């Protein structure tokens, strides 16, 4: 295994890959998310979202407060499809 520095450990997105996307013109978290699935793994970005925002801010000499972050989507954690497929008895 060669040495790598990860931003998103769920989806294996490295710092080098993020920096390359920014160099290639990506400007927002939404774009990087769509390009790489960064923040879209089992932890749903709870861990990497701030690291990614910091990297975007650094690249554009902005403050993290100015970085536009996408909302979180339901469900908050991975669930088995069978759980929803069965429905609820008392729905």
């Amino acid at each position, binding site marked *: *295994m060669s*040495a*790598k*520095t*990860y*931003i998103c*450990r769920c989806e*294996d997105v490295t*710092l080098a890959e993020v920096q390359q996307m920014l160099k290639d013109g990506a400007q927002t978290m939404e774009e990087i998310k769509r390009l790489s699935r960064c923040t879209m793994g089992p932890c*749903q970005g*709870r*861990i*990497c*979202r*701030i*690291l990614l*925002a910091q990297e975007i801010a650094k690249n554009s000499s902005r403050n*993290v*407060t100015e*970085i536009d*972050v996408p*909302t*979180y*989507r*339901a*469900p*908050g*954690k991975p*669930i088995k499809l069978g*759980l*929803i497929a*069965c*429905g*609820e008895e*008392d*729905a």
Partner: protein
Amino acid sequence: MQSTEIAIIGGGPAGMCAAQAAAEQGARVTLIDRGKQLGGQLVKQTHRFFGSEYEYAGIRGIHIANILEDAVRKLDNIEIKIDSTVLAIYGDGVITIEEGENYKKLTSKKTIISTGASEKMLVFTNNDLPGVYGAGAVQTLMNEHGVIPGENVLMIGAGNIGLIVSYQLIQAGVKVAAVIEAAPQFGGYHVHAAKIKRIGVPILTSHTIKEAIGKEFVEGAVICRLDANWKQIAGTEKKLDVDVICLAVGLSPLVELLWHAGCQMKYVPQPGGYVALRDRDLQTTVPGIYIAGDASGVEEASSAMIEGKIAGLSAAEALGYNKNASHMKAKYMEEINILRAGNVGKKVREGLKMLAV
């Protein structure tokens, strides 16, 4: 579909205090936690707590959890759901829950979100190697499951969590090679630092981790010194033979349910990241959704408990219950202001200023 008057998500100190306060006003409460037991962070705290004497300072965390749980279980208008993870809050107010192996829906008139916080990660080479842990994860492993993470630990971060977990590792028979801290001074209390210094563990300030070494798992770590501008100083690298790298570099509030609900959020560094705007009653910009504890901004157990009481009273009051509620709320607000006074509370006060609506 089930319904309740007040749904409380998260059964740590904040959620349990909110449940008790609201139920004592007469409201029907559903308290939901994903854990196998109530208590949140308190369950794994074996040390005596700092904080306010009104909130059981001086007592070990685990015992505080028991006191709060007993009070909650005595009230029969509180329904407790454990092993129940809230998955989402939808626009129409429906809360979905993975309850054991079942999928449940719940509606509520008011909702208090007290989900606590999650651990921050650090960017360094090989940061995905097995053996890189959060300090909270190490605590869960040791103090809840009786499993040690390894044999020799490098602790990163000398705030209270880093210092306390280092001591607990040593108590469990694990060696701590060093505690490193990026800032020029350590952030935790002297009592906790003194305890590990006496055992001979060095606390290295102005130091950071550069790289984890290892193929399949952590076999070592390279640390280096930082200059006054927090830049790494070349040539100061040092290799440590450790098999665990433990990160205690701060927490950020667990807020995804607040995003689901459409609460207005803001990035504010002091409380730990993205947090919800709130009014004095701890109500967010979405009417009926309240916050309390670390989920509202990372602080400590004492303030989490008081915030829980304020949010619980506010929600009950908004539903028309009022057994001296406004008077009690005023008392708790005064108490929390005392807790946040002085130098220690400066950071908290600065953060709150940016979050008030």
